[in-house]
């Protein structure tokens, strides 16, 4: 339309803002000119000079108001006024530093806590995974009734990969640690065996060289290695000529074919490595035809082809697994496929917990808002005279509202700035507190998004808690306040009502949080008190890994284990020492399906599954796992004796119906067993869950170490000894190295530590929710205290009169405390109802506690009443100090 019009407008706005003084002077001059013209006109109509001037002034009306309105018309007034309001607010706040400090600090705490939790959520939930098009990466599992998420068998994986229609790349990985030697001191490396295309699937190219090809997967080859950025730099001096060089892993030569840039490990379930750059080297995943299809240890990742949806991929996999089951009925029947987005697999388990934490910390902020609103309301009442005077001098209602809002914004922005500082420290503390297996912990940073979030919630907070007091102030009844004069202002009924509502809201929110914390505390106690199925106290554990080059045959390995067990058992103070392929509660790696139980048929469409482990004599005794039926292994269960196994109680009950029926039962892993292929169940041991918070134990089989069909290269040492752990650790290390001085002893720790680590996630959630609940309780108590002590101050005359008329201090106390507790009671009832309604959100985080646990509800209610009573007692006691004479004289 008219470009020059916009130029005009821009020029004028800028002028009003920058050359404010001149614009003001011009306005003044303009109005003065008008006054003079009017006076002249009046003179001409025959008035005396003084009459003419007075009439002109009367006609013009309030010069100040016209000026104000003109300024408003120029729009820039908003900015000017806001700056002015801020300055004014700062001055007012500085006059009551205690008040300002309390509000700013409580807000800073709540805003800081919100920002800290948000930065965790931002890093873990909101940031995309650190791979290109990460939303196209999925996990593929086998799934059955007993094992919802099972690793795949390598041969099944190879078939699926060959016939795949839906995926760009399918890759399998399995944990396969190695000991690096030949360059400096020997070091145990975290390593994975990976199939061809694994890094292409992740979308990451090698920094040097290449990744593995399908030819590297042949068992005859498989002696290549890809180095991680860390190992390349720390052990090989970032040598760019390293390709083709041979390094020693487990004393065997491996050729370096590639070096990766820092790669985030996408997480894995069995012998898990937390995601992040924690993998040291990768070797080729080799496919051995003779291993059969019973053994499941490949964890499978895939990248969807462009345009293929998750549902299509799932349908394709279903068809493929059905096809495999037809081809290999003995081993692959009974499985379904499960395709899950990688993001969901990584983050899913803690998503709910993080959202609950965000909710909890959000409640704290709401309570802080209510608290600040209440304190501001109290002050607004005290400032009624000031406000009334300003109104009388011509300040418009909207102007007053803006003034009050500027004050609350100043407070909340100060709180936000301080809170951002607290968040920086808080996030550092949070990350330090995080459970070891917490996904994506390395992605948590305080970044621009977090600061933007902090600023926004500070702004929203200021508006939220500022609006009520501002509206209240604007509604101030001029006449009444000014008439009351020096007698001190009292709150109108409406204002008292609003403050009560805020208080009730505050108390109810605090109750909701406390109940949440209480429920989590109870379920944590339940987890602690669950019978673990073994006795973790005073058990020292360690792990060793025998290099294939030195211990080639199973009997070499077994020979080493026998000697080691003998050494360990002879250590002073040791009650029992054993070796086993796995430790309780660590999650298990090796799983088997498709065995046959003599004289039994699996339910239709299912198969017999179990985890398999190896255990030496005394393994169970050292861990304190009880024998339920039959016997433990003995030194006679060796290759010359007939094959035996021990199973757990759940397996006995699921597959035989009872422990008694299981003992003496026989199973085989062969489709066409010879007599020597049958294993006899000689013992049934108690159940140990995979993880302490697993819903139930799963079927498990142990072979005697001396009879294992293949030598386990990795073994856990278990030593029960009521002695100083440090001494035992040294003794265990000594025992290993007295047999093989080059062998590294890793993961020396006490079993309670392992147990403690598995509690860390619920403990983390409990700690934070508990912290927030305490904060909420504190804020609510301050709120009650504030409201009651304010009302006591207002009613000093009344109390003085009552005392003069014979009321005893106890009566006054009872009355004041009663008033507060009544209000709190309303809040508590609302809070309990709210907690009941919100309970189902918590259910997945609870363990053996109902979301409506009566004990928790009652305890929280009782505590809340007690806290309310205590918060009211101090002002009540002050009320009894009211001097009757002073009160009467004041009247």
């Amino acid at each position, binding site marked *: *339309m*008219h470009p*020059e*019009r*916009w130029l*005009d*407008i821009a020029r*004028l*706005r800028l002028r009003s803002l920058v050359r404010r003084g001149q614009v003001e002077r*011009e306005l003044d*001059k*303009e*109005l003065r*000119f*008008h006054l*003079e*013209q*009017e006076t002249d*006109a009046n003179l001409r109509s025959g008035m005396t000079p003084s009459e003419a001037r007075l009439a002109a002034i009367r*006609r*013009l*009306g*309030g010069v100040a*108001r*016209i000026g104000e*309105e*003109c300024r*408003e*018309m*120029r*729009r820039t007034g908003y900015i000017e006024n806001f700056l002015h309001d801020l300055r004014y607010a700062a001055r007012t706040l500085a006059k009551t530093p205690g008040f300002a400090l309390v509000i700013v600090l409580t807000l800073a705490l709540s805003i800081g806590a919100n920002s800290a939790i948000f930065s965790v959520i931002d890093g873990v939930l909101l940031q995309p995974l650190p791979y290109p098009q990460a939303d196209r990466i999925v996990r593929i599992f086998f799934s059955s009734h007993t094992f919802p998420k099972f690793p795949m068998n390598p041969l099944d994986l190879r078939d699926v990969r060959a016939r795949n229609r839906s995926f760009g790349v399918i890759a399998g990985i399995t944990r396969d640690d190695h000991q690096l030697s030949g360059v400096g001191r020997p070091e145990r490396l975290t390593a994975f065996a990976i199939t061809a295309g694994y890094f292409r699937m992740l979308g990451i190219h090698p920094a040097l060289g290449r990744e593995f090809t399908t030819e590297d997967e042949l068992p005859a080859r498989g002696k290549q290695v890809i180095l991680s950025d860390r190992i390349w730099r720390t052990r090989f001096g970032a040598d760019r000529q390293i390709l083709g060089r041979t390094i020693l892993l487990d004393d065997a030569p491996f050729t370096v074919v590639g070096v990766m840039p820092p790669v985030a490990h996408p997480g894995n379930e069995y012998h898990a490595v937390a995601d992040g750059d924690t993998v040291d080297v990768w070797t080729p995943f080799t496919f051995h035809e003779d291993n059969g299809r019973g053994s499941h240890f490949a964890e499978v990742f895939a990248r969807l082809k462009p345009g293929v949806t998750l549902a299509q991929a799932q349908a394709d996999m279903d068809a493929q697994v059905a096809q495999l089951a037809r081809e290999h009925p003995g081993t692959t029947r009974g499985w379904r496929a499960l395709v899950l987005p990688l993001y969901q697999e990584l983050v899913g388990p803690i998503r709910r917990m993080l959202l609950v934490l965000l909710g909890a910390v959000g409640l704290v902020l709401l309570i802080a808002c209510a608290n600040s609103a209440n304190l501001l309301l109290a002050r607004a009442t005290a400032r009624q005279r000031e406000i009334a005077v300003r109104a009388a001098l011509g300040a418009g209602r909207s102007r007053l509202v803006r003034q009050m809002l500027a004050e609350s914004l100043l407070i909340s922005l100060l709180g936000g700035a301080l809170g951002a500082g607290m968040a920086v420290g808080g996030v550092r503390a949070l990350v330090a507190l995080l459970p070891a297996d917490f996904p994506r912990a390395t992605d948590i940073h305080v970044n621009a998004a977090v600061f933007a979030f902090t600023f926004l919630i500070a702004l929203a907070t200021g508006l939220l808690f500022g609006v009520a007091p501002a509206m209240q102030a604007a509604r101030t009844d001029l006449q009444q306040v000014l008439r009351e004069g020096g007698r001190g202002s009292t709150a109108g009924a409406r204002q008292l009502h609003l403050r009560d509502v805020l208080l009730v809201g505050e108390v109810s929110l605090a109750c909701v949080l406390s109940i949440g914390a209480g429920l989590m505390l109870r379920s944590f106690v339940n987890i602690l008190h669950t019978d673990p199925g073994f006795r973790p106290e005073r058990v020292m554990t360690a792990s060793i890994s025998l290099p294939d080059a030195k211990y080639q045959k199973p009997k070499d390995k077994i020979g080493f284990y026998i000697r080691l067990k003998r050494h360990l058992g002879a250590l002073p103070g040791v009650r029992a020492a054993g070796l086993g392929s796995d430790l309780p509660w660590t999650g298990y790696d090796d799983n088997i399906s498709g065995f046959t139980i003599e004289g039994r048929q699996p339910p239709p469409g299912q198969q017999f599954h179990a985890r398999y482990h190896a255990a030496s004599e005394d393994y169970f005794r050292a861990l304190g796992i009880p024998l339920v039926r039959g016997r433990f292994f003995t030194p006679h269960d060796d290759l010359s004796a007939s094959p035996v196994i021990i199973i757990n109680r759940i397996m006995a009950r699921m597959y035989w119906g009872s422990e008694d029926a299981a003992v003496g039962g026989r199973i085989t892993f062969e489709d066409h067993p010879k007599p020597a292929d049958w294993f006899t169940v000689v013992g049934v041991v108690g159940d140990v869950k995979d993880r302490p918070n697993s819903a139930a134990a799963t079927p498990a089989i142990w072979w005697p170490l001396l009879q294992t069909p293949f030598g386990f290269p990795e073994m856990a040492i278990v030593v029960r000894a009521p002695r100083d752990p440090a001494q035992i650790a040294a003794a265990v290390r000594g025992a290993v190295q007295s047999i093989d001085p080059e062998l590294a002893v890793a993961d020396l720790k006490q079993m309670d530590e392992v147990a403690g680590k598995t509690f860390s996630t619920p403990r983390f959630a409990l700690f934070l929710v508990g912290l927030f609940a305490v904060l909420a309780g504190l804020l609510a108590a301050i709120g009650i205290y504030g409201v009651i002590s304010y009302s006591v101050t207002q009613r000093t005359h009344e109390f003085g009169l009552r005392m003069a008329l014979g009321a005893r201090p106890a009566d006054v106390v009872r009355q004041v405390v009663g008033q507060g507790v009544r209000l709190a009671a309303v809040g508590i009832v609302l809070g309990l109802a709210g907690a009941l309604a919100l309970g189902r959100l918590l259910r997945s985080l609870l363990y053996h506690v109902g979301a409506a646990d009566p004990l928790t509800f009652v305890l929280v209610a009782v505590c809340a009443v007690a806290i309310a009573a205590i918060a009211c007692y101090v002002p009540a006691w002050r009320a009894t100090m009211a001097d009757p004479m002073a009160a009467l004289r004041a009247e």
Partner: protein
Amino acid sequence: MSKPSDLLQGTLDLLILRTLALEPMHGWAIARRIQQASNEVLQITQGALYPALHRLEQQGWLRAQWRNTETGREAKFYALTRAGRAQLEKELAQWERLSGAVALVIRMAEE
């Protein structure tokens, strides 16, 4: 001294624009001209006039200039811009339509 209602304010804008369509004028003269032209019916309060002038100026419809009056005093003269002229046309058309409609309704009520 209450604020003029929206209808009156809109009307005031129209009156000011129409008055300035004749020649540039200062605030006092505008008020006087409107009063005279309406046979003393429309008394413009200064409380409404100056905010309206400043608003119209801010919207780019008027341009202000300090000039000397015939009596030699310095006054702020307002003049229509091109955009202001267009705005005047628009408001006039709107006013015709509105007053015509009101007249129709009133006549109908008489019959």
